[in-house]
């Protein structure tokens, strides 16, 4: 197993690197700097760091004002609070206003663990993907996180980046290049495709290795950009492999699975299975126990691939 690295720690350190190069980068937080890891930036550039206190709506508004005046604000808190607490502020003051605000939220999904349902964002992608012009990105490891943060800092336009609390194994190599809107083929294959995001990409690779033992040749796509999504890669996967499984640590409603389903329904309907949270809230527990409870493991992906292959035409 590859070394496990914290994506939020990488986020915090990448911000410092970017801050050294670009004086226009400013960072906002809502009393969570030790958790979101914006604390590194706060230490290095106190005059460019604004802690608004426990006031996420105000944080987004201040970020939009900074963006309108030429700054590149990164605003961070837990995903349940942004977009959760301040959806309307993101909708009007960021997306509708077309302002260059970067919202980077941590502690998404059930892998938050012991803090339980109130702190486990499972609907943030449905919320953010519904907003016109907002770019939505979910990195799958620390290496990708660094590239994503660099990319959103340069990209002009509002972005939402979703990070987990948990450490994850590095599945990309150091020379990994990230491009907004492009899927990454993690493993070629012709019998079925698993399209995964975030925490689930490593699980999908494990599943594909398992399936290979049974002679099932499974393609794995990492889909870091959920919006604008790589339609070409999805349509190609449907055409070439004839079956698709999506895997995400998010509600089945409104996340990766429903987006992929919409695209293949239009272009090339093939059987699909969905590895996702099935319309329930999370609970306290150890991250791995919860992934098992909510059927979000490599084993569940293996089962879903076997099922979807049975239904292939």
């Amino acid at each position, binding site marked *: 197993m590859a070394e496990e690295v914290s994506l939020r720690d990488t986020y915090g350190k990448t911000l410092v690197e970017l801050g050294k190069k670009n004086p226009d980068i400013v960072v906002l937080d809502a009393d969570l700097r030790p958790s979101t890891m914006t604390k590194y930036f706060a230490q290095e550039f106190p005059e460019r760091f604004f802690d608004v206190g426990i006031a996420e709506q105000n944080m987004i508004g201040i970020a939009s*004002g900074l*963006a309108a005046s030429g700054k590149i604000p990164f605003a961070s808190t837990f995903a349940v609070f942004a977009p959760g607490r301040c959806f*309307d502020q993101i909708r009007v003051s960021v997306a509708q206003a077309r302002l260059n605000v970067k919202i980077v939220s941590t502690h998404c999904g059930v892998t938050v663990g012991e803090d339980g349902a109130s702190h486990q964002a499972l609907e943030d992608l449905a919320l953010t993907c519904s907003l016109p012009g907002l770019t939505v990105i979910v990195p799958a490891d620390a290496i990708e996180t660094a590239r994503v943060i660099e990319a959103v800092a340069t990209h002009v336009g509002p972005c939402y980046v979703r990070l987990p609390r948990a450490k994850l194994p590095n599945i990309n190599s150091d020379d990994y290049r990230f491009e907004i809107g492009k899927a990454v083929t993690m493993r070629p294959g012709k019998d079925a495709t698993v399209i995964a995001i975030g925490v689930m990409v490593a699980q999908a690779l494990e599943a594909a290795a398992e399936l290979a033992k049974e002679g099932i040749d499974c393609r794995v796509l990492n889909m870091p950009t959920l919006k604008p999504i790589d339609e070409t890669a999805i349509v190609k996967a449907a055409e070439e492999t004839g079956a698709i499984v999506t895997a995400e640590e998010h509600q089945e409603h409104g996340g990766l699975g429903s987006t992929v389903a919409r695209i293949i329904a239009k272009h090339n309907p093939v059987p699909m299975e969905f590895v996702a949270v099935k319309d329930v809230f999370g609970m306290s527990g150890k991250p791995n126990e919860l992934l098992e409870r909510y059927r979000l493991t490599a084993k569940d992906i293996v089962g879903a691939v076997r099922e979807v292959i049975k239904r292939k035409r």
Partner: protein
Amino acid sequence: MTPSDSNNASSGTSADNVKTEVFASNEDLKSVAIRLRRHIVTMIAKADSGHPGGSLSAVEIATALFWKVLRHKPSDPQWKNRDRFILSKGHAAPLLYSVLAECGYFPMSELSTLRQIDSRLQGHADRTATPGVEMSSGSLGQGLSFAIGVALAGRLNAQNYRVYALLSDGECDEGQVWEAAMAAAQFKVDNLTAIVDNNGLQLSGRNRDIMSLEPLNEKWAAFGWHVTDVDGHDLTQLLDALEKAKKVRGQPAVIIAHTVKGKGVSFMENNVDFHGKAPDAEQLETALKELA
């Protein structure tokens, strides 16, 4: 042109050396105010919808700002040293549009397109649609936070523009306003003046019957702001307070402007029915007679 492909304020370019002029006028402000009121009732009547009450109550506030206080260039809305005016009470867009047209940001004839499909004059203020509109609003309670961000950027960039945010009183029911109030004091944002259009009415009744704001002055003071109280229809008092606010150091300034909702049109004054209702043809005629 649709709002989405029109002027995006953030992409505007501006050079300091272009021959654009800072807006100046020696006109009698009282006659400006009357013209603005006539535009407001006329455009809302034409659109057959909109918010006359809260547009009329803030006419003198806007007049004082755009004609005497703000440094701005109508021919260069993105001039980088301009003072910023942020309309947080976005439903008063007809007031802002009337002001911008009178100043020359766009042709006066465009006022009659308010709220029509593809118009640059959207129902609520939209920065991506209208030259001179600094921020999109319409969801109450958000403008002060934005204004703080603009003020902080000015400080970081060592620019000496000043930021003005116009809030309404019912809007102060929103928790975000008080989050912003705390933050502005904490960050010692002294290049910001907020003005509260304290007309005493909100959508469905009097503030004090729905959600009392009193004591409003003391609340702002307790949140760390320099507070001034004025008659919001008295231009001399407004100009005086706006000038004094500029000199406050180390804390943000707020002006509580006591106003009358629907001011200037007898049957709209203090009448909650005209919060969000257009006058009919006969009412418009009466209104315009009163606003001669």
